[in-house]
């Protein structure tokens, strides 16, 4: 493999054992691979939200936009629309994208805009020290819910499927080989792709053992079959004990937003005369 250096001088401040390392390492390997296969590094832009996960862009020496809480998605969309040739990979937390920014995610999926969302779903707020998130299980005792939450979690993949996402997958921070495979596929998928990563926060919600016991890898599922995908996605509802499927749930070819949207962009040169033309029409 090509020996490109994707490191930066930023000191890594994630807790030892944090699941974010696996995501970062997998992404770096995929980027290196894509670059070896001919994708120019400068064509890649990483976007992140705010939370422990957001620091990932500091640690990878590639173009990046470190955005704000909940708003990584529209930034990624703007970059993609402005320069459709760029590969835009967007990292967000579960509090970030499934909570504060859920509206944007639904619309990005609806538009089928060609960006890749990697959700660091540790099912807890890491950076603000341990509050519940939209995917924390019912009864989760966080710092803002000391007697346990009274609302059940949402199933983000079900929501994304309903919203029109055309690539949906799940991985865990204990499965870097699988992460590499789905990240690469998701990045190369034309259209909106989302990978929900069960990223374990060792400090506030250590689920390593639980996940190790329950996960299995999807095999031979029909990726084009919406109903099959829905059933598989519903098998585990982020709440009750059930087998947890990993891998790709759904993949569909569908025109991406920018394909219908981007037109020829004439140069600046004849703007002046066109403005005059418009003015004259208005006499």
């Amino acid at each position, binding site marked *: 493999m090509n020996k490109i250096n994707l490191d930066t001088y930023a000191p890594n401040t994630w807790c030892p054992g944090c699941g974010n390392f696996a995501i970062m390492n997998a992404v770096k390997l995929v980027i290196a691979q894509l670059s070896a296969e001919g994708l120019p590094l400068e064509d890649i832009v990483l*976007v992140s939200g705010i939370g422990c996960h957001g620091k990932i862009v500091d640690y990878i020496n590639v173009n990046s936009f470190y955005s704000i809480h909940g708003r990584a998605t529209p930034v990624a969309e703007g970059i993609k629309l402005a320069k459709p040739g760029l590969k835009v990979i967007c990292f967000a937390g579960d509090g970030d994208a499934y909570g504060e920014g859920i509206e944007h995610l639904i619309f990005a999926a609806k538009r089928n805009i060609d960006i890749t969302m990697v959700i660091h779903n540790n099912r807890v707020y890491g950076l603000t020290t341990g509050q519940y998130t939209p995917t924390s299980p019912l009864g989760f005792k966080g710092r803002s819910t000391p007697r346990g939450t009274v609302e059940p979690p949402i199933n983000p993949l079900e929501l994304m499927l309903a919203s029109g996402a055309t690539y949906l997958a799940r991985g865990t921070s204990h499965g870097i080989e699988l992460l590499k495979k789905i990240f690469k596929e998701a990045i190369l998928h034309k259209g909106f792709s989302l990978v929900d990563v069960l990223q374990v926060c060792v400090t506030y919600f250590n689920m390593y053992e639980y996940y190790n016991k329950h996960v299995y890898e999807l095999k031979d599922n029909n990726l084009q079959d919406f109903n099959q995908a829905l059933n598989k996605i519903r098998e585990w509802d982020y709440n009750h004990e059930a087998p947890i499927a990993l891998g790709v749930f759904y993949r569909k070819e569908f025109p991406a937003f920018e394909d219908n949207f981007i037109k020829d962009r004439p140069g600046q040169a004849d703007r002046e005369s066109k403005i005059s033309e418009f003015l004259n029409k208005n006499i």
Partner: protein
Amino acid sequence: MDELSILIGGRAGFGIDRAGGIIGRLLNRMGYHIYIYRDYPSIIRGGHTFSIIRASKNRIASHRDKIDVILALNQDTLDFHKKRLNEGCFFIFDSEQVKPQMGPNCGLGLPLGKLLKEELAPEIMRNTCIIGALTKAIGADFGILEDTLKKELAKDLDLNLKVARRGFDAARELFNFEPLQQKSLPFLTGNQALALGLIKGGLNAYISYPMTPSSPILHYLAEIGDDFGLDVIHPESEISVILMALGYAYAGKKVAVGTSGGGFCLMTEGLSLAGMAELPVVVILGQRPGPSTGLPTYSAQSDLHFALNAGQGEFARFVVAPGDAEEAYYWSAASMNISWKYQIPGIILTDKNLGEGIFNFDLMLAGEIKEEGPVLWNGESTYKRYSAAKNGVSPLAFAPSKDAVIKVNSYEHDESGITTEEPQQTKMMQEKRLRKEKYLALDLENFNTVKVHAEKESETALLCWGSNKGVCVEAARRLGLRAVQPVVLNPFGAKQFQEALAGVKKLILVENNATGQLMRLIGGYGFKVDKQIFKYDGRPFSLEELEEEVKGAIK
């Protein structure tokens, strides 16, 4: 007659707005300067809608209370505007709908329904019919109306022409309003002028979520965008609007967004991000009476301090308030240039009176706009997105850019754009960002940021900003006073302002708000006003109304 004011009124859904535009164009074709004030409630059908079309030999940008001709499509129009009737005012009405309570000489009643029925025309064409009558009443040729309608109406032109002819034939000449031997100027809403100015400033993308009074900019750019290769996007919310816009700016595309107060509330987090990440974006902020939803279709100047202070933290910004169509064009182009030159957000304050008012537009008067490209990376040493510079402006590079890793960051960061919490770096970066505003202020000394109008030597001055310009300048001219108009509100040109006030003994403030927002701003620079004239009922000052108030203030 040097000028003429026509009021046309009816219920929302009668096509009053359209009719006002046609009348304006008709008079414009006769060589007059035009200004149209449009008044409509925030309902789709019903309520009372009217437009005042004023034509004058001179440049104008205000309406008068004194009306010469009222066109009434319903009884309300007469009842609501009776106070405007005076001697010499004519009244053309639908005799099937309106009972006039005035002398026979004054009115001209036409059975519009009957005329339409005979032509098998739909009810909506009553407005065309009454415009036909108006044309005859002011002694104009039918040919002028015919040309106007041909240009204005793509749909049902023939039927409209027939209906207009019926109105024309059924009316009689009331007076003779002579055409002027003068070239007609283009005819634009303030919003259209803003939109064209953005294009002139190099706009690549316009992103907006509908909100009165700036939605027409979105509609207009969506309509004409293909001609200029623009991306015009209406996403899910204003939050999305500004964040998408920052994505565009990161990628090197010139972008503007438009909204009103409520939407701007949602944009403030993105505005702060623009400040921290040093991303250029132009925001058009259409003020309306608030707080909250307020009066959606009326006007105010009550978001100046919001614009000056929106967003957390301290960062440089450019805030400008154009006063008419030429200034709207000029300053939206200039805002785009300034925003890119300094990598800061620029806010254009407008309101319904400016945005939806219709003006003559004289490109010659708008002023020369220098194209100033952003400072770009020369490709030599290692790229640092936030490299420290004397004036705070770091050279830009855009992805994809070989050999440059471009990192922007909402978090405090070092020169390379990597997060830092180190005190020295924090201080250095904060100072770098603020420095830009100081250099911008110097730069602005080459612009006409504070304008002086009318009687420039008068010791009494009216102080106004934004859409009040038109009415203040005209009132000042008639009363022999000076009018002073700061156009750029941040960075505020205190020196230019001081010069504009040289010799002034009495300063009379005119604002469309209840607390004196400009007064508070200049107060911070040690300037005081002597009298205050506020109007905050959502309606603009009419010329007579302001004159009365000013006379009271001078006494």
